[in-house]
């Protein structure tokens, strides 16, 4: 698939919305173990709202910044909760970084992932090891940067990113939550994969599907 960066991002969000919707029940079950069991519902609601907002033909959707800002607003207003501000801030930072680039290649996607992770980190005042979605987004963004720097594109690039993401999510099972509702559980959060980390993996996998022909930066 080809097309402008903005159009490709819109298609990517549609893919993410489908993937999250399909996984909603599983995510809520994960959340039930250490939280209030609504993570799947919140995420599905949020990305559905994003898909609807991006389905409108609007001038602002012509640039990546416009797409990501519209996604941020739609997600936040549909969800609230804690994922709302986190994802909205991430999308806004990613949009700022991409601005009006015309073509998505490995380097721009890596930059987008890094800006996204930085936004989430800033808003949630969190870090790696807190047993949150950051345990996926930070290593995924780092792997993306390394893959892009090494001139890898397409499936090669995404393999590096998704492997880092999956390992990050798996690692949360051995962590004690320090943020959010699970933080009050102490040791009882051990052994459970963080639901926010699990949904982040699904999002990254959907991005890999939608952008599988990503050119390298050469």
């Amino acid at each position, binding site marked *: 698939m080809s097309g402008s960066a903005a159009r490709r991002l819109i298609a990517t969000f549609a893919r993410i919305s489908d993937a999250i919707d399909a996984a909603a029940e599983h995510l809520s079950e994960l959340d039930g173990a250490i939280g209030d069991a609504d993570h799947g519902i919140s995420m599905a609601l949020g990305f559905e709202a994003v898909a609807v907002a991006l389905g409108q033909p609007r001038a602002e959707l012509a640039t990546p910044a416009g797409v990501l800002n519209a996604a941020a607003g739609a997600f*936040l207003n549909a969800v*609230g909760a804690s994922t709302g501000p986190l994802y909205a801030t991430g999308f806004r930072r990613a949009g700022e970084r991409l601005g009006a680039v015309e073509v998505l290649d490995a380097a721009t996607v890596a930059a987008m992932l890094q800006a996204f992770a930085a936004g989430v980190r800033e808003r949630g005042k969190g870090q790696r*090891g807190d047993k949150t979605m950051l345990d996926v987004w930070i290593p995924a963004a780092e792997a993306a940067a390394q893959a892009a720097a090494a001139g890898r594109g397409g499936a090669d690039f995404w393999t590096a990113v998704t492997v880092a993401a999956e390992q990050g999510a798996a690692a949360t099972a051995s962590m*004690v939550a320090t943020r959010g509702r699970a933080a009050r559980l102490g040791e009882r959060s051990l052994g459970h994969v963080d639901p926010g980390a699990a949904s982040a993996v699904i999002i990254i996998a959907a991005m890999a599907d939608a952008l599988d022909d990503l050119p390298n930066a050469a």
Partner: protein
Amino acid sequence: MSGRASPSPRSTGVRRVAGDDAQSGSPLRFGGDPHVWACWLYYQDGLTQGEIAEAMGISRATVNAYLSEAREKGIVNISLDPSRLASLTIAEDLRRHFGLDECLVVPSEETRPLIDRLAMAGALALRTILKSGDTLGVVWGRTVMAIAERLDLPSLHDMTVVQATGATPATFPYTPTLCALAFARALSARCVNISAPAIVGSPDLARILMEERLVAGEFAALEAANRIVFGISSLRPNSTIHASGFFEEVSLQHYLAQGAVGVLAGRFIDRQGALVEGPLDARTIGIPLDKLAAIRTRIAVAGGFDKVPALLALLRGGYANVLITDAATGRGILNADGGVVPRPRTAAPARAASGSPASVRTHVKKFLNRPADAVDEMLEGALQAHGRHLVALAGQRRVFVARHGPRPGKVGLVVGGGAGHEPCFLGYVGRGLADAVVVGNVFSSPPPDPIADGARAVSGGAGVLFVYGNYAGDVMNFEMAAELVEADGIKVRTVLTTDDIASSAREDRDGRRGVAGNVLVFKIAGAACDLGLSLETCEAMARKANRRTFTMGVALEPCSLPQSRRPNFELGAEEMEVGIGIHGEPGVARAPVAPADAIVDRIMDAIFAEMNPAPGDRVAVLVNSFGATPMMELYILYRRVAQRLAARGLVIAANWIGPYCTSLDMAGASISILHLDEELWTLLKHPCDAAALSVV
């Protein structure tokens, strides 16, 4: 230890001791510690001392000595509390899962510091492991030092203790040098210290020092070690590695970014146990990890669930073949590695004994149309029901304003949070109470825009006060809203409610959840606003009310979300969740369902421990249903609450009993006590008129 076990359910899942492992004479394995072994045979299996002597291949006198020593040491608790015995099974599971030679797991308990108990177990283990003529390598650390302090083995001969890392100028009492010296003293051993710093200025200097004859000789002694004892540090912000200042000159961030999860003998390892390279490696003087792994007996002593990632790394890397930890940590490690997790010892609840497929329900029944419409339809109904109190804010579906609340010159009070807690929060909007409420999705914070619009709508020029429960989502959304509103020149102050005493330790009061005590804080804040007090004063009153409100809840059955119509957590047939959150998030402990009075006593004891009331003090009481618990049961609870308060000489100045802050259809209740003073009492009795609360 209280004599022979009372009839305890003897589970067939309990591993019997007289298996092959026991015969192999291993010193530490379940049963292997002779004290545990003897006690188990005596107290649980009911063997006589003679039979035990035969089973263990020792004399009767020794059996007797073991039993009494075990009593004295208290390290094995033979009261046969099932959860404590589980620790033995955990040890066996850990041993198998990680291929350890030995594993000793101390039962988890909260009364004594974990480090002391681990140290005692470590000392006990060393007593069976160390033999005359051994060379013991010693890594520094708090736990390692604690072991040395409890170790006393003067009967061994020709022992050598070698410091396994270089020295540090740090002033804490568990430096590498001090740890090695303490072990040498306990073992009457020759002590070899390393005459070089653990971290030196440059790789060149490290090389030069290692070639120095004195240091080279010390390292040669270290190479001869046939045992080594060590702990492991996590990289969490509160870990020893941060606190000790050992690595203060180096950015831990570098190692964190490379995936480091722990520090072992001064070396950073990743989650698989591989060495994480960084700027310190070439400047570190200490045992390299490959040399450590080559030592025959490698004893790791560590516990605490913050260390689970580090411990997993250590075990996956094969650095230890003897592990000493505690039951909670051991269970955490197994959980985290997908290992065999011992089943609870209580008999498994009979699952759906009725059995016929027609009776198996997959969904909870609810009055719903389209589940996705539940919140909005609920709000439409509430608005129609409470039109006397509430009006919808134009342009917003989920923001309601008090009909007779906001006035020029009065601080506007905004409350809110997720739906599903009805009558919270919309029932507390009205004159003398909140001026606006903002409602989110079920159990989810509302987003910033409607919150900001609500605040603008009730701003009377004297500022706006936000009062809401301390949840990450609410905090982020309300903070973003506050930024939006302040950009319009409206002053905003925020008070987070943190009344749930079960949700965090007393030292972390600010980290606690806000639960049903919200209602009492709203009442006080609403009265302060209604009296026309300044924003600062209203904030101060709300803060005081929150500080003096104590809540704890118990769930008997889970709630179910409208979207899933399934229980959102599992609670066994005979279990209750103590300290439950109002979103069904797990509480502090799971316990067998107890009689109502016992439940109230547990809650009131916890509340009294925090509030320290004096006889004659006045309190307000809120006994709150989580949605499915009827008034009959609430009155039964209130009866006991009143008895307990009377016994303390406390006066109930006001009481509310009913569903005030619910969790959909959860069966359960919470008790909130507001410890009044004159100021709070004046505000509490100030009139208010809202759908769910009125004071006349």
